[in-house]
């Protein structure tokens, strides 16, 4: 009997372990809306790290579906593809299945997509958030990103307006205007994001400060929830995030703390605390590429969308937004589009008490993290600038932001 219970325990352990690990293939939607456009010859393959439950991946899936519906291109989606050889297998399987444009959405997919691109020179591959297309010199491998820091800045303005409202109402003093930010990794994309968010808030609420903590994962609902709760316990009166689950927004809703989310509106799950959310709208990019592929034309090696072309978008304001927020956002947006306002204007922040006059950024990826390009031009940090690369490389630690941990 003892032997049997041991056996049962092991079988149980094995089964539960299997259940935990049994995720990891693909889902798809075929979508052949033939409406007469010549893009119907285009078959798009989309590779995503998670599925619709992740706000990040959902943002890609929705955009791809909308763009394909509009242009008449066919769409095949493979979800839950890990950042390993599986990404290569998924890409070549899509190529074998006749896709002529294949996009992968997660940072760790990039090297595997490059391998697939080398093998299928007739198929166009693209990788969102990647850093290597501008140095790889492969004709059929592309990167894409958008100036999301512009969207973060505008969302930051909404946060700052909320802080002002709380100060005026006497809920907090001006010195207590501390925000919290749940980040994934100490990666440039995250640093660029939280810094632009902070600068947006500071532009309307000068006493604002911020604490940042990192979870070490792009999607970890429990860790993000715990991190948000820790920040709230630390006295943060407003939370934002750069991680892909609903962890932080739901923690805010429970605690009644206003929240600026990311990748799309969380208003339905968090009706009382949702302020606004910024996101990259991938639809313009998908459309550009589908039309280019249909016409047999080239498209940018390293595409960088912006507020202007609709690639950077803000959701509608939630009920928690302060009065006058929309007007403030619209005004700043007009200035950004007109080129009058630069997000990383060196006059608006200091590093160790000093104004930044020169900064060599690591634009070309290498194992030594060697800085290779001067990023300060005309008094501002030229994030994702022309001739550099689309993926963010702003990794300066500015005053006013405290990092609680940097383990990841």
């Amino acid at each position: 009997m003892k032997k049997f219970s041991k056996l049962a325990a092991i079988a149980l352990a094995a089964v539960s372990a299997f259940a935990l690990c049994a995720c990891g293939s693909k889902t798809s939607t075929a979508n052949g809306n033939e409406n007469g456009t010549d893009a119907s010859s285009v078959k798009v393959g989309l590779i995503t790290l998670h599925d619709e439950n992740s706000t990040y991946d959902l943002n890609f899936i929705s955009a791809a579906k909308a763009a394909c519906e509009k242009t008449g291109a066919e769409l095949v989606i493979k979800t839950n593809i890990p950042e390993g050889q599986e990404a290569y297998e998924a890409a070549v399987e899509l190529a074998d299945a006749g896709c002529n444009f294949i996009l992968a959405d997660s940072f760790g997919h990039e090297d595997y997509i490059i391998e697939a691109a080398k093998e299928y020179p007739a198929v166009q591959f693209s990788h969102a958030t990647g850093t290597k297309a501008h140095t790889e010199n492969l004709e059929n491998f592309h990167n894409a990103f958008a100036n999301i820091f512009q969207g973060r800045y505008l969302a930051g303005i909404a946060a700052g307006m909320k802080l002002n409202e709380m100060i005026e109402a006497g809920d907090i003093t001006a010195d207590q205007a501390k925000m919290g930010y749940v980040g994934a990794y100490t990666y440039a994309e995250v640093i660029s994001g939280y810094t632009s968010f902070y600068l947006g808030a500071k532009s309307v609420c000068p006493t604002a400060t911020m604490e940042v903590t990192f979870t070490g994962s792009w999607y970890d609902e429990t860790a993000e929830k715990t991190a948000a709760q820790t920040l709230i316990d630390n006295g943060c009166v407003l939370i934002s995030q750069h991680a892909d689950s609903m962890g932080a927004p739901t923690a805010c809703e429970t605690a009644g703390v206003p929240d600026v989310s990311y990748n799309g509106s969380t208003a339905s799950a968090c009706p009382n605390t949702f302020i606004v959310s910024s996101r990259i709208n991938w639809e313009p990019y998908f459309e550009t590429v589908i039309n280019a592929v249909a016409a047999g034309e080239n498209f940018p090696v390293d595409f960088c969308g912006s507020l202007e072309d609709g690639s950077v978008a803000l959701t509608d304001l939630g009920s928690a937004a302060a009065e006058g927020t929309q007007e403030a956002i619209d005004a700043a947006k007009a200035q950004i589009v007109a080129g009058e306002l630069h997000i990383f204007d060196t006059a608006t922040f200091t590093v160790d008490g000093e104004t930044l006059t020169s900064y060599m950024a690591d634009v070309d990826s290498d194992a030594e993290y060697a800085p290779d390009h001067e990023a300060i031009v005309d008094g501002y940090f030229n994030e994702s600038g022309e001739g550099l690369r689309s993926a963010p490389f702003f990794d300066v630690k500015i005053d006013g932001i405290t990092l609680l941990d940097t383990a990841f």
Partner: protein
Amino acid sequence: MSNKKVHEPLFHIVKRDEMTFKKALFIRLLAIVAALLLCAVITMVVTGQNPISVYGTMGVGAFGTARKTWVTLQNVSILLLISLALTPAFKMRFWNIGGEGQVLIGGLAAATCMIKLGDKVPGGLLILIMFVASLLAGGIWSVIPAIFKAKWNTNETLSTLMMNYIAIQLVAFFTVLWEVPKGSGKIGIINQNTNAGWLPNLGVPSFTGSKYLLTIIVALLITAGMFIYLAFSKQGYEISVVGESVNTARYVGIKVEKVIIRTVFISGAICGLTGLLLVGGINHTLTTTIAGGQGFTAVMVSWLAKFNPIIMVFASLLIVFLERGAGEVATNFGLNQSFSDILTGIILFFIIGCEFFIRYKITFKRGGHKK
């Protein structure tokens, strides 16, 4: 007191005598058929899809194209290798639940060689160093709990399990140390341009299988080797004796401590070899999830096959087939991944559950009959 009626339960569970192979096989087939029927009903009720075409799609997912077949065989090989690695330890009643960690440590050793020696030593020598490093790393990782077991009779189920988490954290630490670009938490493909330390592809590049063949051949060799080792070698016999009874083993002069440590080292070394294949041959990178939980799935495979290496081939094939087939079902029918996981879960539940009916029989209460 004495005239109180004795309540007889509705049914008894009675241990069976040893069942014939044919009858046991019949029960297992019956379980699979029952599982497929239940899955068919659930598929129809929940999704309205035709179950026959769903099953057909599973076949396409695993074997639909030449490449799909090769990937399926490669995945079978990896799961099979880990299952084979655990088997000698299990046969000795040493519950090595640490396959996951031993694979990871083997992979970590291979990745370390690729990163640190990639541009310093010639290709062939580098692969040789990686081979030795991975096997040793996996072996040493498994031997640590084995020494504690042999010397102080500690519980190896717990200690091998815990060693997994240490291995995962070590890999996480080195991932952050070697990440490119900074802060991204990803090492990326190692030596992507030089291919230093990449295990060779076999055959001409135009042959689809060339990328996958090495892993498959290694798995075949280890399967044959393990079968012979367990069934015909003196050491294999010692493993059986220690597994049956430690005291008998001592009585006939077997050095039990030595057998435990030696066997568990072999177990860990084969896991380390699998780590080498995963890092040097397949993924060319290192992540904490590179073993993907297969160190645990392998425990089930080894048990399902009753520690027989040949049957293990089929058990691994079954599990990989379900996994890959389920993925294809999700793709073609626009269903969520979770639906395929449900189907896989049902099938495995029936297969594991039927083992109960092979070992025990249920006798129901019959009215009027008294002993």
